[in-house]
């Protein structure tokens, strides 16, 4: 068990470093065991350093930096152990346009072999959909769903 934990930790850390560098160009990050001698009980600390900044306490990161760092960590875990599907509910609400584009590009890179269900209000995120589901609620307080398949091939052809 000890070895398995350490092995997985190394792998997640490796992926976290790669993905963080993608989402924060010029930045670097890593995972640190708070008590490396005790693999059964040790905690995991996150060190994140966006470009140009000193290594700071996580609490001083901005709202958007925190969301994007958390996403990098999650994607590292997903890459280490893939799941059948992922549901992300407005995870990109705090991101500015540039970081939103980086997040979308990363999700897009996984599209061929991963299933994402993404809830959003952001127009740019909607544009990445293969299928778009609209949820509505009439004055009767009951939810309904309406789906619309987006022909990505045609969407891509007309927008290029």
């Amino acid at each position, binding site marked *: 068990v000890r070895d398995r934990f350490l092995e997985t930790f190394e*792998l997640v850390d490796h992926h976290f470093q790669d993905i963080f560098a993608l989402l924060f160009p010029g930045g670097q990050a890593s995972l640190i065991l708070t008590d490396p001698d005790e693999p059964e009980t040790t*905690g995991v600390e996150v060190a994140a350093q966006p470009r140009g900044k000193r290594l700071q306490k996580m609490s001083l990161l901005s709202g958007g930096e925190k969301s994007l760092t*958390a996403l990098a960590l999650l994607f590292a875990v997903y890459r280490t152990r893939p799941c*059948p599907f992922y549901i992300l509910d407005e995870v990109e609400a705090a991101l500015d346009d540039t970081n939103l584009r980086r997040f979308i590009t990363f999700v897009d890179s996984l599209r061929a072999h991963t299933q994402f269900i993404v809830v959003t209000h952001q127009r740019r995120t909607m544009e990445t959909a293969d299928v778009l589901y609209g949820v509505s609620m009439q004055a*009767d307080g009951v939810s309904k769903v309406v789906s619309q398949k987006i022909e990505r091939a045609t969407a891509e052809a007309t927008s290029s």
Partner: protein
Amino acid sequence: MYLKSLTLKGFKSFADRSRLSLEPGVTVVVGPNGSGKSNISDAVLWVLGEQSAKALRGNAMEDVIFAGSSARQAVGVAEVDLVLDNHDGQLPIEFSEVTITRRMFRNGESEYLINQTPTRLMDVQELLHDTGLGRDTHSIISQGRIDEILNSRPEERRALIEEAA
């Protein structure tokens, strides 16, 4: 393996039977504030065995049953069906498609079914054991919870590594 469809009936604001058929790739869910988007992700957490009402934003588990609206009466049962495509045989079961069903009655009783056969929560959790879709899975991020991963204590974060193990 992927999520093939999800059907809600009497679950939270979905008084009438609503079905989402899903494909691999990216499905985006949109709609006005309060229309029911997060209720869909709550439905997935619930059918996979979620036991905490608070994780589903309620105070008691009965809060998942449609409680009525200005025009509709409350109903007595909430039901969610989740269908996984199992052509790759990743789930340890003979079927190429697996339906997991959960029902909840006003009297607090809960039922689980796998492919229409009554079963126990333990069997559902056993079936999903190797997929990463078990309890406290990080593959479903509820609204507002993205920052919790960083705000939690280092001992809590080790669960992330254990989940990936």
